């Protein structure tokens, strides 16, 4: 369906986004994710405004993974953590990871060139409908996003929402 994105700085890495709606087993999937028995970062699509936001998070996660400086224990946990505008790991999971009652789900996969990942296998574990990434805007909760990232009206006049979000994501460890 939607093509994988190659990371410019890590050309051997490709990032695939799978979007699902009408998901019935979010609780079970969340449990699997915590146990590490499902491949991928399980993210709440309501907090995502643009695939670029995911790419920035993934890029940073891959970079830190390669130099052994991740703040969390797995690459996928790191991606979720990177989406957060602050440095509180459990808060990041609460806000950006999926919750038991969620009906929409975004799965992010990062694959090295040599490895192949079985997309069908992952898709089959989701009791829901896979939909095109084009539907992401319909699932985004813009009000909540602005609140979590604390985007001001002045900022919105200057640039896009993604711009504001990406800035916070990439500079949070400097501030």
């Amino acid at each position: 369906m939607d093509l994988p994105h190659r990371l410019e700085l890590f050309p051997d890495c490709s990032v695939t986004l799978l979007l699902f709606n009408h998901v019935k087993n979010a609780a079970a999937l969340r449990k699997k994710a915590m146990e590490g028995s499902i491949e991928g970062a399980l993210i709440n699509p309501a907090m995502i405004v643009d695939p670029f936001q995911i790419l920035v998070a993934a890029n940073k996660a891959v970079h830190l993974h390669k130099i052994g400086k991740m703040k969390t224990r797995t690459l996928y946990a790191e991606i979720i953590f990177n989406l957060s505008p602050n440095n509180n790991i459990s808060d990041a999971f609460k806000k950006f990871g999926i919750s038991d009652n969620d009906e929409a789900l975004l799965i992010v996969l990062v694959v090295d060139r040599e490895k192949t990942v079985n997309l069908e296998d992952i898709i089959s574990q989701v009791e829901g409908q896979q939909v095109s990434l084009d539907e992401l805007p319909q699932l985004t909760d813009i009000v909540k996003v602005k609140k979590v990232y604390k985007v001001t009206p002045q900022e919105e006049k200057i640039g896009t929402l993604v711009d504001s979000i990406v800035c916070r994501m990439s500079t949070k460890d400097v501030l």
Partner: protein
Amino acid sequence: GIPAPVVYFVDYVTNSVYLEDIADSVTVQDHINSVQRNGNDTSSLLVLGEKMGELLAKMHDEDLIHGDLTTSNILMRPPMEKLDLVLIDFGLSFVSGLPEDKGVDLYVLEKAFLSTHPDTEMMFKALLKSYAAASKKSGPVIKKLDEVRLRGRK
């Protein structure tokens, strides 16, 4: 609320910062040169000066000192008529509420202006007027600017 390139990624290993590329942008420096060369509508430069004044007022009101204000550190996004400005190169920036620091910031720009762009006194005047009108704290800053100007001549 200051237009500047978006930071995409900070690499602490190589100490690099990956920024947004403002595609097809032109520096204010190149724009002024081209307008003057073409003998074009120089009154448009006055409006540009006003826009710059507004932008710098916003920046200084947030107590951000650029530290290296020149016409090549301000970009214009296409189309040029929109006067959509973007500030770049914050390598010498710092935070300060002192009118002296803001005055010096403007002085650096004035010197850069007049040495790079002949016949732009009116443009810079328009810039300062607009700055004074847009900034909530401009009084002391302009005062300091005048003082610095006098110091510079000694």
